[in-house]
């Protein structure tokens, strides 16, 4: 599975999504709510731009010294009594986790929300090693019982499902008999999962930020399931993307603040857990930290390095007008929205994902929303340039059209000729100053809207005439 969702080409997936009215309503409602909450939370600080600038500085410095900080982190985790595994690929990470699962003979594993474990197909690996994985984050739980549906949003993975759908699902799969009230559904899950937490042999969590100076990992959450996973089972495995690290607790403060406000509009989430030492007195006896590269190191040192600044808050997704209409699954990747369109081709390659960088009107809402100032829309343009100039994967018709454009843009005579002749060329299509059904590139345009008819006298001719008349 990995990051990939489905095999259909992008346009097919987008069209399917556009026709899914339930999903679109759910997404629009969520976007409006999250956007409002985030703006309020940001405004209440009074100097949000300063916070963003500081967030950016911290992330840039950390990435520029990533090797150093990861080294320091691993030294300190070991000193605290934990084990560290550096996984170059998804397979490496899977193999290590399988090894631990087998060694501990873990049968029941409780897991809290984590995108990187989704990225490396960790659940499948654990199951191969004989463990049963129970997703305990409410959204992930919903997806798991929906026959392993895939996440459509990096913070609320089940965003595409409304409460009626969830209620039906619970009835069908779990024998639920209540109503579709979210409170009732959530209480049901509390009771349903309660015993699993106590019986579990192992917990698996993601990591929002590791702290290099003390070898700590932090987990930002609301439901209490992540605390369960890091408190009750004897063995704990935490999996982190290698860029999710801060130098010290001082920087943790800033990034956690940015994350909570940007992701859910909370000042802090209900539970932020900073784990430093296993030892078993009131927590796990054994701790394993798996640091995952899986393509990230290839982004470092390139024009896309700033994409690694991402703290997975989904602020860009929550304001994206394209995501609003197609939802997450249309991106064909567990990383959706603007950051998904930037990251997915870097992790999964252009062969499968060359359409994603074009799934943006470049309106810049993402760039404006990003709490660590990733220039997302600019990175999308960089992808497009790479696809055209280096990968040579652009459609031939576009290459041809752009050659023509270059010629016209470089020749005022040709440009002016085109302007003058446009009304005549388009005349057959024109009716009452507009074109309702065009051909060529205009065909796509006029499927949804009218195109204006070119004016008989372009501006340049008017100005020329006026100047000659002595004005």
């Amino acid at each position: 599975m990995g990051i990939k969702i489905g095999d259909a080409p992008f346009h097919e997936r987008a069209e399917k999504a556009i026709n899914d009215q339930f999903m679109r309503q759910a997404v629009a409602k969520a976007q409006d709510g999250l956007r409002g909450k985030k703006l309020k939370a940001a405004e209440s600080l009074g100097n949000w731009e300063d916070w963003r600038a500081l967030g950016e500085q911290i992330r840039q410095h950390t990435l520029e010294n990533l090797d150093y900080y990861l080294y320091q982190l691993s030294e300190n985790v070991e000193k605290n009594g934990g084990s560290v595994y550096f996984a170059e690929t998804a397979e490496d990470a899977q193999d290590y986790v399988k090894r631990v699962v087998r060694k501990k003979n873990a049968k029941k594993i409780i897991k809290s929300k984590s995108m990187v474990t989704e990225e490396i197909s960790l659940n499948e690996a654990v199951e191969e090693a004989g463990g049963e994985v129970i997703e305990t984050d409410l959204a992930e739980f919903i997806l798991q019982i929906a026959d392993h549906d895939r996440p459509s949003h990096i913070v609320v993975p089940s965003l595409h499902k409304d409460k009626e759908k969830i209620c039906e699902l619970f009835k069908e799969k779990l024998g639920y008999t209540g109503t579709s009230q979210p409170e009732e559904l959530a209480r049901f899950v509390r009771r349903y999962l309660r015993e699993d937490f106590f019986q579990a042999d192992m917990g698996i969590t993601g990591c929002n930020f590791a702290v290099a100076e003390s070898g700590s990992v932090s987990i930002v959450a609301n439901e209490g399931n992540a605390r369960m996973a890091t408190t009750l089972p004897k063995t704990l495995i935490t999996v982190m993307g290698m860029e999710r690290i801060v130098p010290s607790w001082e920087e943790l403060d800033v990034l956690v603040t940015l994350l909570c406000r940007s992701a859910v509009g909370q000042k802090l989430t209900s539970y932020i857990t900073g784990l430093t030492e296993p030892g078993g007195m009131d927590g796990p006896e054994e701790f394993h930290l798996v640091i995952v590269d899986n393509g990230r190191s290839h982004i470092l040192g390139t024009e896309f390095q700033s994409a690694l600044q991402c703290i997975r808050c989904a602020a860009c997704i929550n304001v994206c007008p394209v995501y609003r209409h197609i939802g997450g699954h249309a991106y064909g990747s567990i990383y959706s929205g603007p950051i998904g369109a930037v990251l997915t081709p870097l992790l999964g390659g252009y062969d499968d994902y060359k359409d994603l960088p074009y799934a943006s009107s470049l309106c810049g809402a993402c760039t404006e929303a990003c709490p660590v100032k990733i220039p997302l829309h600019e990175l999308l343009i960089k992808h497009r340039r790479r696809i055209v100039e280096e990968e040579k994967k652009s459609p031939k018709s576009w290459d041809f059209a752009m050659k023509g454009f270059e010629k016209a843009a470089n020749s005022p005579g040709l440009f002016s000729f085109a302007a003058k002749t446009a009304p005549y060329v388009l005349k057959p299509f024109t009716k009452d100053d507009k074109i309702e059904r065009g051909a060529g590139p205009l065909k796509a345009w006029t499927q949804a809207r009218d195109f204006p008819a070119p004016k008989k006298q372009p501006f340049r001719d008017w100005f020329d005439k006026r100047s000659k008349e002595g004005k």
Partner: protein
Amino acid sequence: MKVSLFITCLADIFYPEVGKDVVEILEDLGCEVDFPKNQTCCGQPAYNSGYHKETKTAAKHMIEAFEGAEYAVAPSGSCVMMVHEFPALFSESEKEWQEKAAALANKTYEFTQFVVEVLGKEDLGAELHRKAAVHTSCHMNRLMGIKEPPQRLLKHVKGLEVVPLSHSYDCCGFGGTFSVKMPEISEEMVEEKTKHMMESDADLLIGMDCSCLMNIKGRLTRKGCSIEVKHIAQVLNEGRK
């Protein structure tokens, strides 16, 4: 003050009346307006599509066309933003072009920004008794940060009531080549934009960028909606007549 008008392709070919209004307003404000005849396109369609070699050709051409200008003014924040991208198109080995590009970027202004920030004028004496919604174009508003000038100019239009527009911050779905590369998504975006517009109290939509206006108007007329669409230069100039 000498102003060289950067008309932009869309205004040149489809909305020459916008250009005429810009010329008349600037002249009335005491500017001497000229039109560098060699100007073509800023290159944005190529740039945003990833064709940066082709963009460079267009950029070089425009840099030369406006070489003698004191100020370059365009009735489009989007095209102005592209001109501001020019310096980054050239590498260190093209220092001379880099400098020329920076010089052009430094003297290129969006129309309302020029009137308010350079000429220091806000009240152009226009009058229009209508309820209007304003579309703040993304490139100009968000990426160029030109937020206040249009608001200030419209505030002084006598009789004009600017009404709230739900989701006014969302893109209209044009996005240049996006509208033909991703037509199904672009359609949904402009559909939502026009839906919000029709739910507002406005019978007029005012914008600062012909590209967004072309997109929104195209959808409105397709839906048979009678909301009128005007560029801010039209509102300001017609209102004085």
